């Protein structure tokens, strides 16, 4: 593949052709993927050359279907993120599916109890590949407020299923969940997330008494 050349928003026009209506163009606009040039090389006005893998990944990350699945208080924030004010659908992740068979993404939003953990495992196994998991909130990350005396809480959903993105907070605000979603999209795209750990985080962690 030749060196990708810098392209502007008109690339989207080239991809979908000029018969498709404006709003449809918006949906397929590669601007949400930062730059089509990194995915594909336009050869002429109506032809692009791309690796199938890249295009598939682009399609996957633009239409993540989460499973309708809430465990505790964090689920309220997830509903809020899916509602009109924060509108998760802007990132293509608004089609909440009622069955694991149709879902790509499992947002584990809340406390994973021992009773629920086996069900989570089963639901995860029922999801078709490729599939991703977001651990939302302190509880799903590591037991949260139930770490010390929570006899019934699994100390992190990553003990049951592999987790792709951790979204911290108790509960995380919808913005944070959306950010986690975008980090997941980065991951699907095959890039590292934009967020780097600032130096003060380690310094702060070292001050916490053990």
């Amino acid at each position, binding site marked *: 593949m030749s060196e990708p050349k810098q392209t502007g928003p008109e690339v989207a026009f080239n991809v979908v052709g000029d018969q498709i209506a404006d709003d449809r163009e918006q949906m397929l606009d590669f601007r949400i993927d930062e730059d089509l040039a990194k995915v594909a090389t336009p050869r002429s006005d109506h032809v692009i050359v791309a690796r199938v893998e890249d295009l598939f990944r682009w399609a996957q990350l633009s239409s993540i279907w989460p499973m309708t699945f809430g465990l505790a208080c964090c689920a309220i924030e997830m509903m809020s993120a899916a509602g009109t004010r924060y509108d998760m659908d802007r990132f293509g992740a608004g089609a909440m599916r009622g069955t694991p068979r149709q879902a790509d993404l499992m947002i584990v939003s809340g406390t994973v109890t*021992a*009773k629920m*953990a*086996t069900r989570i495992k089963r639901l995860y196994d029922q999801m078709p590949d490729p599939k991703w998991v977001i651990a939302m909130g302190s509880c799903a990350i*590591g*037991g949260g407020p139930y*770490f*010390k*005396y*929570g*006899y*019934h*809480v*699994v*100390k*992190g959903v*990553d*003990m*049951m299923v592999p987790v792709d993105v951790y979204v911290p907070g108790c509960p995380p605000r919808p913005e944070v969940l959306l950010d986690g979603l975008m980090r997941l999209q980065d991951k699907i795209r095959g890039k590292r997330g934009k967020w780097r750990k600032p130096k003060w985080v380690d310094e702060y962690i070292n001050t916490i008494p*053990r």
Partner: protein
Amino acid sequence: MTEQEIYQRLQARFDDSILGFESDIPQPVVSCTPEAVGDIAKYLRDDPALSFDRLLCLSGVDYEGLDEKGKGKHREINRYEEDGTVNPVEDPGTGDLAVVYHLESFKHHHRLCLSVRVPRETPKIASVGHVWITAQYGERETYDFFGIEFEGNPDLRRLFLPEDWVGWPLRKDYEMPVRYNDVPLEGLGLAVRDEQ
């Protein structure tokens, strides 16, 4: 009717079964013996002057480490340590368990708190499920968390925890589980993640 009057009325009717009355607290408490609870409950509901037609709450209490008045110093209880392991406290409890009934009358707008202590070794008490239907679920919950057996409850199974759960979690000498079936419950994951 005030709590004092209710207490006197109960004492006149049940005599020895009524053990005491505590009035210097915001919600005065009448205590009675576990065997008499069924009869007392029926009387409280059916007596026209009392007519406690609603059971607000049925809950369990573990008096381990507390004195008669429910006061005492904090007892060391089992927990998971910061590194994720279980910290066992080798101190089996000896204190009583108790069941507390909060009652209300829609007709007379008065309330009563009835407390019943049962010994820890044989926590058995008569069910009031036939008097107030809601009690059947409250009793199942109390059985689930404290292991108090309600004799006469038609369906005394665990309510929230899985049926094969071991132990009574809200007792203060409860042993923290390491696993439940295939599910790890100690904080092993955090310890592993810290090492990496």
